[in-house]
């Protein structure tokens, strides 16, 4: 006799909206969906009070476009493509348009949730953003968001959403191509919970953990990342990929100078510098103009490193503002640095060689401007995504909040007439087997050890200076490393977190390497040393990958242009403003 799902899972829950990931994005979506009268379950592998990239706080909200409008954004985007800049990778500018049109609505909605959007004087504190790339023209807000997560968590609880903390998604449940919920597990108790939902929203954040953070030891303290490791595991990327979705731009990572000094102040507050460039110097005081990966290598070969960022040409007011910024985003780091004698005026921030950071904002889940997850550019029924994990421009704090609020606001319409979810019990059973397998492994490998090996592989065989031979060897080594997956062991349910994350990261490493093999050119900070020129045939295109009939597939796709009505709207707006 066929088993019922209730005989397989310890708990079976049904809801309208399942939100996977309780960071800023997921919490905003949960509160809004409840306000719209929907039943909501929010699952979070940690605890929504302190989870996601802003677990311990954040000092900036980069959500506002200049008055230039979308036509200029389109021009800047095209120009950045011509010049090969990283920021020009958004596959579909229409997503950004949704955010752009609604940025002030989002501001008001966040205030209604109790989020402090204003400064000490009661007014919004506008700051220009000086990040390199086309977003340099945007303005943002300075915010006191040390406690953004407790504030949003309170709003979520007040809304009546059901929150399952310490609960992680194992896999999505699918039925005839439609996503109908997820199999999940409590990583404190080991309880297996099947959740049926009309809509499943992925808000699991970014992926950084294919590459090492600064900590050099081969074993301990492997999580010296700037962003929360739990929301940097790429869970959502792998979940949707296994369900057949498109992942895009998986060749591209962010790049940054490894920033590490004896006070371990993390970045995040450098956005406060009012658009004035920071100055960079060699150890013996020579100014370095436009430091980048190539320039760093040259300096290293010439014996001119270490190099440092310096703020000593800034006003005293800036240095005081910097201190406030650190308190908003990284209070513990600031306190420890102060105890060790940190002086924001005189401190020199050492920059080390440029390394890949992670996949977010432009690399990841392919969505349209309704935040629907796509397969072959067509929406997958029942599946949505927003936040850092999407390659749609809904990354960053404002992207996550905006995406979550806008999607949740439109869910009642999107979910109208959706039939009840039918769940395949065999699928649930298989998920449970996968999830609990590490409990049965004796003398196996701990997940962090296997993950360390994976990160080493990506550092060594992918890295910044990519080439055919290294990438192919990386792929070969990866296939060999995958043999360890069945040996992942969990002494307690806690280790299941790492086991599931490792499984996700292994799959995503293969997607990443295959994408790098495909892009045979050098463009901006994407460097193929064996193809040092830009390949113009790749202009306006992006790499798209998915599983078809059990096999990985890769294709090049054209960037989706702005819809005519959006372009017309933006042009009219620009004309009116003049």
């Amino acid at each position, binding site marked *: 006799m066929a088993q019922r799902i209730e005989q397989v899972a310890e708990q079976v829950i049904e809801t309208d909206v399942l939100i996977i990931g309780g960071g800023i994005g997921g919490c905003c979506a949960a509160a809004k969906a409840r306000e719209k009268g929907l039943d909501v379950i929010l699952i979070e592998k940690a605890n929504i009070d*302190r989870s996601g990239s802003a677990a311990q706080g954040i000092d900036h909200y980069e959500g506002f476009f200049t008055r230039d409008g979308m036509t200029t954004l389109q021009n800047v985007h095209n120009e950045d493509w011509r010049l090969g800049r990283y920021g020009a990778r958004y596959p579909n500018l229409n997503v950004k348009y949704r955010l752009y049109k609604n940025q002030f609505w989002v501001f008001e909605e966040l205030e209604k949730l109790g989020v402090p959007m204003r400064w000490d004087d009661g007014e919004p504190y506008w700051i220009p953003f000086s990040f390199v790339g086309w977003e340099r023209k945007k303005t943002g807000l300075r915010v006191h968001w*040390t406690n953004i997560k407790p504030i949003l968590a309170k709003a979520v609880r007040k809304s009546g959403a059901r929150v399952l903390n310490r609960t992680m998604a194992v896999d999505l449940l699918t039925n005839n191509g439609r996503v109908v919920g997820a199999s999940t597990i409590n990583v404190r108790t080991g309880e297996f919970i099947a959740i049926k939902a009309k809509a499943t929203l992925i808000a699991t954040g970014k992926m950084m953990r294919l590459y090492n953070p600064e900590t050099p030891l081969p074993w301990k303290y492997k999580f010296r990342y700037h962003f929360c490791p*739990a929301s940097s595991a790429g869970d959502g990327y792998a979940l949707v990929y296994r369900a057949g979705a498109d992942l895009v731009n998986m060749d591209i990572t962010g790049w940054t100078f490894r920033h590490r000094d004896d006070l371990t102040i993390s970045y995040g507050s450098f956005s406060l510098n009012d658009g004035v460039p920071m100055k960079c110097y060699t150890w013996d005081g020579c100014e370095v103009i436009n430091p980048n990966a190539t320039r760093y290598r040259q300096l290293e070969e010439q014996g001119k490193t270490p190099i440092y960022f310096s703020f000593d040409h800034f006003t005293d007011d800036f240095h005081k503002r910097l201190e406030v910024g650190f308190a908003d985003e990284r209070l513990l780091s600031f306190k420890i640095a102060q105890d060790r004698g940190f002086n924001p005026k005189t401190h020199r921030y050492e920059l080390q060689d440029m390394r890949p950071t992670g996949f977010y904002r432009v690399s990841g889940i392919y969505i349209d401007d309704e935040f629907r997850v796509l397969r072959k550019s067509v929406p997958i029924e029942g599946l949505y995504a927003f936040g850092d994990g999407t390659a749609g421009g809904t990354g960053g704090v404002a992207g996550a909040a905006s995406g979550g609020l806008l999607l949740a606001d439109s869910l009642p319409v999107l979910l109208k007439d959706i039939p009840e979810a039918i769940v395949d019990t065999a699928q649930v059973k298989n998920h449970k087997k996968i999830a609990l397998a590490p409990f049965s492994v004796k003398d196996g490998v701990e997940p962090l050890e296997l993950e360390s090996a994976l990160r080493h592989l990506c550092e060594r065989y992918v890295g910044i200076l990519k080439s055919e031979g290294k990438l192919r060897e990386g792929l070969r080594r990866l296939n060999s490393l995958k043999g360890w997956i069945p040996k992942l062991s969990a002494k307690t349910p806690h280790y299941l*977190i790492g086991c599931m994350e490792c499984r996700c990261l292994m799959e995503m490493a293969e997607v990443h390497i295959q994408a790098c093999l495909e892009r045979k050119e050098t463009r901006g900070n994407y460097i193929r040393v064996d193809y040092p020129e830009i390949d113009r045939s790749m202009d306006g295109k992006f790499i798209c990958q998915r599983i078809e009939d059990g096999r990985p597939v890769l294709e090049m796709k054209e960037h989706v242009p702005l819809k005519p009505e959006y372009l017309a709207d933006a042009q009219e707006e620009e004309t009116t403003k003049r």
Partner: protein
Amino acid sequence: MYVKIDYHRCIGCGTCYERCPQDVFTWDEDLNMPGVTYIEECWFCGCCWMDCPKRAIDITYPASFF
């Protein structure tokens, strides 16, 4: 060693155990107190230190951070 709970100050409210983003703590049912169990997975965000109502947690960085 790097995340230290002062058990003279700790009141067993459970906030650190409930909120840790990396699930570093476990709970001792007999003592009704938290313990730092998975220190290798700590990313030193300081949420436990910030949210402890009795400031019972002291944090320093491991040498490998420098």
